[in-house]
C-alpha cells in the first residue's frame, strides 16, 4: 500500500533530512512512526503526499508512484491529520471545513452530509458541527481536524501527533476510533503508549534513517534502543529493567 525504496530528501544541500529510507506498509496495517524531534517523521508524511520532492529513491502509495502525474489520484486516497490543526482548519465553520474535502472529490451534498454526521458521531463532537473554527479551543480543534479527515473516508490514513493537546478523555476516544477504523494507517507520535495501543508495527527513525522496524511489542519494550534514540519506554512497560 505504501512503499519507500531508498528514499533520500534534503531541505538544504549537504544536510539530508532522510537518508536511504526503505520500508513498506501492507494494506490494512497500522504502523507507528516514532523518533525524537527532527528525526524526519513529518518529512516522511510530506513526501508521501507529494508536498516535498525526494532527491533520491522511489515512493509508491496505493499502487501509484508519487509523482506529479498521479498526485491528485493519490491524495484522493490519503487522508492526513496534520500536526497543527490551525493550518488544517481554514474554513469559517467546522461543518464547512468537513465539507471541503468530500465536495472536492465529487461527492453529492447528501453523501457528504451523511459522512460528516457519521464522523462527528464517531468522535462524539456533534455539538461542534456549526461552531466557528476561531471560537473553539485547541483540543476541540484537534478533534474537529480528525473528524474532517474521517469524513473523507480515505483508504490510507496518516496522522501526525493525533493526540497532542487532547485531554485524557478525548485522547481515549481518539485511540478507540483509530483502533476501530478499517484501512491502512500510519501514525507519528511521541505518545508511545498511544502507539502501543493502536499500532501492530513500529518504525523508529533516527537522524533521517530507519533504526528499527518490527512488531510494536518488541520495539517499544526495548529500553536500550529507545533511550539510545532519545525516547523513553511507554508507561505500560516502565517496570521493565
Amino acid at each position, binding site marked *: 500500500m505504501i512503499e519507500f525504496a531508498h528514499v533520500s530528501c534534503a531541505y538544504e544541500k549537504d544536510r539530508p533530512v532522510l537518508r536511504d529510507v526503505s520500508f513498506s506498509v501492507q494494506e490494512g496495517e497500522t504502523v507507528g512512526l516514532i523518533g525524537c524531534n527532527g528525526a524526519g517523521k513529518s518529512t516522511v508524511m510530506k513526501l508521501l503526499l507529494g508536498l516535498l520532492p525526494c532527491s533520491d529513491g522511489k515512493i509508491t502509495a496505493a499502487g501509484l508512484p508519487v509523482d506529479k502525474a498521479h498526485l491528485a489520484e493519490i491524495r484522493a486516497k*490519503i487522508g492526513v491529520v496534520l500536526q497543527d490543526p490551525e493550518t488544517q482548519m481554514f474554513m*469559517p465553520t467546522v461543518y464547512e471545513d468537513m465539507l471541503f474535502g468530500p465536495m472536492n472529490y465529487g461527492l453529492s451534498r447528501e453523501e457528504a452530509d451523511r459522512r460528516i454526521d457519521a464522523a462527528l458521531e464517531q468522535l462524539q463532537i456533534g455539538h461542534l458541527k456549526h461552531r466557528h473554527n*476561531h471560537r473553539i479551543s485547541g483540543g476541540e480543534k484537534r478533534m474537529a481536524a480528525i473528524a474532517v479527515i474521517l469524513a473523507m473516508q480515505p483508504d490510507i490514513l496518516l496522522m501526525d501527533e493525533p493526540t497532542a493537546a487532547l485531554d485524557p478523555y478525548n485522547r481515549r476516544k481518539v485511540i478507540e476510533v483509530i483502533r476501530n477504523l478499517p484501512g491502512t494507517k500510519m501514525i507519528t507520535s511521541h505518545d508511545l503508549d498511544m502507539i502501543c495501543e493502536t499500532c501492530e508495527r513500529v518504525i523508529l527513525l533516527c537522524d533521517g534513517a530507519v533504526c528499527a522496524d518490527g512488531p510494536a511489542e518488541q520495539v517499544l519494550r526495548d529500553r536500550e534502543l529507545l533511550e539510545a534514540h532519545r525516547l523513553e519506554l511507554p508507561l505500560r512497560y516502565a517496570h521493565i529493567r
Partner: protein
Amino acid sequence: MNRMDTALRELAGMDDLAALSSGIHDLHPGVKLLAAIIYIATVASFGKYDLSGLLPMVLWPVLLYQLSGIPVSLCFRRLRFVLPLVLAVGIWNPFMDRQPLLRIGMMTVTAGMLSMCTLMLKGVLCLLASFLLMATTGIDRLCAALRAMHVPEYAVTLLLLTYRYIAVMLREVSVMTDAYSLRAPGEKGIRFRAWGSFLGQLLLRSMDRAQALYDSMLVRGYRGEFYYAGTRPVQGRDLLFLALSAAACMFFRFVPAAQILGSLFI
C-alpha cells in the same frame, strides 16, 4: 487581548455576517458581484462636480443594508482605517480649484469644494458596496462566482489565499507581539531597533503558515475549483434583483432625480 486579536476577530466576524440569513444573503453570489460592479462603475462615472446627481445613489446601499440586516454603522466601524484615506483623496481640491460656483449666505462654495465632496462620497459609496458584497456573500462563495464567470483559476486562488493570508499574518503578529511584550514588560509597543528582525521573522513565519495552509487545501483535493461553496444555479429572483439594480443605477445616472425633486419645492 491585543489590537491584532481584535483585528483578527473582526476579520472572522465577516464570516459570521456572511452566515446570516436574509433575502440579500440568499441571492446568487455571481449576481451580487455583477450588481456591485455595475453600481461601482456607475458611481465612478459621475462627473467630479455632479454631487447632486450622485446623491440619489446613496439609496441603493442604504436599502440593501436594511434588507440584509447589516448595520451601516458596522461597516463604518470596520472600515475606520480605510475611510480616512478615502476622505483624503480630494482634500487638496479646494486649494487647487478656487473657481466660485455659488454663495450660501456669507460662504462662497468653490468648484474645488464641490469636487472634493463628490470624490469623498464616491469613495464612501464604493466602500459601502464592497463591504456589503463581502458581508452578505463570504470569500468562498465570491471566489466560486468568479470562477463561474471564467476568471482565471490563478487569479481567484490568489484572491482567496490573500484573504486567508491576512488572517494568518494577523495571528502571527498577535503571537509575536505577545511574546515580545512578555519579555519587555516596561516597553510600550516594539522598540525601533527590533523592527527589522520583527518584520523579517513575521514574513518568514507567516509564509511558512500560509504554505502549510495551502498544502492542507491541496491534500484535501483543492484544484482551483470551489465545489464546496454550494453555489446554486441562477434563479428568476436573482435575475430580477440584477435587473432592478441595473435599472436603478441607469435611472439615477441619466435622470437628474435630485434636481427634479428639488424643482418641485423651489
